[in-house]
Every structure is written in C-alpha cells, then in structure tokens.
C-alpha cells in the first residue's frame, strides 16, 4: 500500500484563462491530519474538488488512494468521505430519511456512529434538512461522511460560517470522532487556530501554488523570523535569496527563513558582520508571512 493516500503531480487548472491551481505537488500521508491552508481564492477548494472528482485538472496527475478521481469506482468511493463548505443536502428530506437513503450505498454503514453523532450534536432525526440551521446541516453532512467509515475524509471548510462557540464545539466533537476512528483527514480551512489544534501536517497554498507542505512541528521549529541589525559594513549587498520573505530598510533587515539547523545564522551574521534576533512564529504568523503579497 502506498504511503501517501493523496498524491498530485504538477497539477494545473484554470477557469476562463485564469489559473486557479498551478504546478501543484501535494502529498498526504496515510493516517495523518493534513491542514490545507490558504486565503480565500487561493485554490483550496479547486484542489479539493479535483480530489473529490467534481472537477478535472487541465494537466497533471492526481491519485486518491491510488486511483485517478475521474476513474473512482463505487468501491473507491466507499473509502472517501467528503464534506464541503457549501454542500447542500437534499432540503426536503428528514435527517433520518437522509441517513437511511445514504446508507443504501455503503456496505459498512455504521448506524451506531449515526446515533452517537445525533446524540452528541443534539440533532432531531425527524427534522427536515431545510429546517436545520446552517451549522446543524454541516453536522449532518459530517455525520453522513463519518457513518460510511471512510479511510480518507476530505473536509472543505467544514466549520465555515459558524459562530465561534458552535465552531469550537463542532471541531472538538469532530476531532474526537476522527481520532477514535484513526482516519486520514484533509482539512481545508482559513481558520488557523482550528487547524493548529488538530493537524499533523500543514500545506499552505497561495495564488494557486503550494508554498509549504510539511509536518506542523517541523514547520514551527524551522521557520523563524529573524531581524538583522548593527551592520558594521553597511547593509548594501545583504540579501538572503532562499528567504520565504525578505525586506530591508536603511540599517536593518527582516527575513522569514527556514532554518534547518542552528549554524546557519551565526555563519550569516559573521559573513555580513551584523547581529541578529530570532522571533519564534506560530502557525498564523507563518501563514501570514507565506501568503502575504
């Protein structure tokens, strides 16, 4: 079995001549919770829709569980759960009827999971979908994805448009369930605090390009913001080409850098005869540094 449940190679997709995703190389490890981050319009949803087989790439390769999304069979779909930000469930159906209807298509459907989630979220199975609040409808969509017992759960902004309290409750319940079931999760969100609490790995997409994709711990360990100051021979000529972000003023420079080891900065400071100061970044800071134009 392949180590990666999702693999894309040089994927490109445009809409009306405007590139939504460019040269995307995304790999999601089995068993991980992958936080897929980006600003609105960065290409997250386009990527996720390509993974879910709702739209097709113009070029490049996509493999989900080893299969091209365009060729996903019914058996392949048993293993993929999907909840999208704007996914609308059949509005006239009652929750119970929708569960019953959806269960017809999954051999391993778990009614116990349904009952548990209905109880946890306090959802009335007799209510029609159109009578539910937006948040409750999202919870039902999540329930439907969980009860099919998927190996891969794709969640595109599952808690978007919920108020803070509802979002937190939803995320906590969702995480408990995901951990219990030991699934691979691709979680797209622009709410970084949510992702930071749960994700093992992080991918950051900006303007259709995947800028960063690595484990969250390593990302936080290695990406730092460094202020260089006190240049004895002047700041002219001081550049760091590999920096994620670099700016300089008359007498100091600010760089967001990936520092794989401790020795890089002393060497740099010695070469340019300057001093430096390191600022540790949280995920939100890193995200802003990466996607800032």
């Amino acid at each position, binding site marked *: 079995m392949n180590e990666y449940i999702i693999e894309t190679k040089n994927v490109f997709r445009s809409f009306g001549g405007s590139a939504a995703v460019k040269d995307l190389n995304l790999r999601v490890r089995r068993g991980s919770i992958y936080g897929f981050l980006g600003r609105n319009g960065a290409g997250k949803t386009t990527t996720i829709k390509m993974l879910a087989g709702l739209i097709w790439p113009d070029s490049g390769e996509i493999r989900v569980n080893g299969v091209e999304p365009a060729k996903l069979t019914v058996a392949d779909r048993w293993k993929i759960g999907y909840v999208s930000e704007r996914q*609308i469930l059949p509005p006239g159906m*009652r929750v119970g009827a929708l569960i019953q209807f959806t269960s017809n298509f999954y051999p391993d459907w778990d009614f116990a999971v349904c009952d548990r989630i209905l109880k946890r979220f306090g959802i009335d199975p007799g209510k029609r979908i159109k009578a539910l609040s937006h948040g409750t409808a999202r919870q039902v969509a999540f329930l439907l994805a969980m009860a099919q017992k998927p190996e891969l759960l794709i969640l595109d902004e599952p808690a978007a448009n919920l108020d803070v309290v509802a979002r937190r409750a939803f995320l906590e319940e969702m995480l408990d369930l995901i951990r219990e079931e030991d699934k691979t999760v691709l979680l797209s969100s622009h709410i970084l605090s949510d992702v930071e609490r749960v994700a093992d790995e992080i991918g950051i997409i900006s303007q259709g390009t995947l800028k960063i994709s690595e484990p969250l711990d390593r990302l936080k360990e290695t990406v730092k913001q460094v202020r260089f100051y006190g240049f004895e021979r002047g700041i002219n000529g001081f550049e760091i080409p590999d920096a994620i972000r670099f700016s300089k003023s008359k007498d100091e420079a600010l760089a967001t850098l990936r520092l794989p080891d401790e020795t890089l900065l002393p060497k740099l400071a010695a070469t340019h005869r300057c001093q430096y100061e390191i600022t540790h970044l949280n995920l939100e800071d890193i995200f802003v540094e990466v996607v800032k134009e």
Partner: protein
Amino acid sequence: MKARTPYWPLFRNELGVGHYAGIPWAMCLGFYLAIWLLASSLPLLILFKTCEGNLATFFTAFGGMFGFALVWWVAITAWLFAFALLPGISNPIQTVRAFEFMFTRAIDRRHLLRTRAAVIHLVLLGPLLLNLLVSSGSRETTFGPDNSQPESALRREQYSNAFPASRPKEGTVGVYPKEGTVRGWPITALKSLEQPAPIVIPRGSMALSAWILWMGALGLLLMQGYCVLVARHVQNSPWRAVMVIGGPIVAAALLAPWIPKLYPDLFEQSFLFFARNLVPLLIGLLALVPAVQIFSERRFSKLEIL
C-alpha cells in the same frame, strides 16, 4: 463485495419519495395521475368521439390540437431533463448543490443518470403507452369516404398500401342517393354520385397510438441528447441553462401554429409512412435508445460541479 449502485433507492429518490410531506406529495401524485390519464386517452377520444373512428377527418382535428400538445410536450420534457442533467438549474428535489452531494456519494453516475432517464421516460411515455394498450381493445377504425379533398382517391390508395389488410366496410352502400343532401351538402355539389365504401383499417387505432408513442419516444430521446449535449456548456450558469432549455419551448410555440397551415398533410403522411415502415422504424428507435443512453452517460460522467 460487488460494487454496484442499488437501483431502487435511487428510483424512489428520483420520484421524490421521502422529500416531501405525505399530503402535498399525494396531492401532486393525484394531480399528475389525472393529467396522465387525460393525456393517455386524449388521442383516442378525439378519434372516436369527434371523428367517429374515421381517420379521414382525424388529422384535421389532430393538427388543431398539435400546437398545444407540442409545446406542452417540449416544455415538460425539456424541464425534466434539465432538472436531471444540468447542475446549473435548481430542481425541486435535489436543488443545485445537491448534485454535489449525489456526485460525492458511492453512486455510479451512469446508474444515477440511467435511473433519472428511466423515471422521465416512464412519466412521459407512460400515457402514450397506456394509450397504445387501450387502443388494442378499441373499436375499428375506418377511412373515407371523403370528398373534402380532391386527392381523396390517392389517399385511399395510400391507406390501402400502408394497411394491406384493410377491406371495404361491409353493409355500406357505395352509391349516394340522387337527390337530397349528404352531410348538409346538396347532391349537385358533389363531384360524383358514386362513392366508394369506407375502408376498414384493422388495428388502425393501435397503429395510430403506436405512431404517437413512436413520435413521443423519438422526441424524448432527441431532447435527452440535446440536454446532455448542452449540459457541459451551461452547467454552472443558471441563466444560460434557462436560455438553452427555454429555446426549444419558444421555438415550438412559434412553429406549432404554422405547421398545419404550411404542411396540412404532414401528420397524415407521417402516420402513413410510419405504417408502411413499421418494422425498420421500430428497430431504428430501439437502436437509438442505447446509443442516446450511452452518449448521455458518458457526458454526464464528465460533468463538473464548480
């Protein structure tokens, strides 16, 4: 485990079962059944009540109602296929975005479309099929005598050719009286006093019902092909979708009144052509069903949901 999409849950879903409260659903069903029965009996009612089973006068009446029937048919067919195929158009059961829900479940898209098409075919061809079944037990159909057209003899011959088993009606006198009136016409106005007896067309009403069913099925398949063909181009634009679906309906509404005026014999000649070439036309239609379905399923499988 055999990975196959179960058929009946999809079929029930396409009929709207479980989507509405019981009473509105039953009311809709009752209304639809009334329309269904009316539509299924209308052609035969016209034939036997208005035209007294005589095909010579039927097509004039048929031409009169054709415009309304065509517009109604195109409108119903186009919208049902639009609901089934175009993600850009909100439909009463699934809504626009529920396409995404269905497309991301473990449902084979081809089976989904097959079920949708089966429901639409059943709903729209059901009355015509019922019409065909009822016609098998209806009384005999005749043609002539008809002096309203100078080509009467030619048409009579065409009927005789199209229905080789036709025969002169027994017990009818083929000669009109020398004085008095026939159907309100003075005898002197008639070209000839000697008139051939009406011909009896065995299974004529069945042939007529089969012709209507054949035209309906052909129209349905063509509309399915059209909707599938345009689906990809309008899939994310409700306005474009409404325009391409509304186009044929408007065209039908504009053309329908002119067809009987410009081509008064069109329906009758079409019927006679159908009767003469029954077998090849039926084979052609049957061959068209899988062709359209396979084409539709391929296109439907490639639809994108933005």
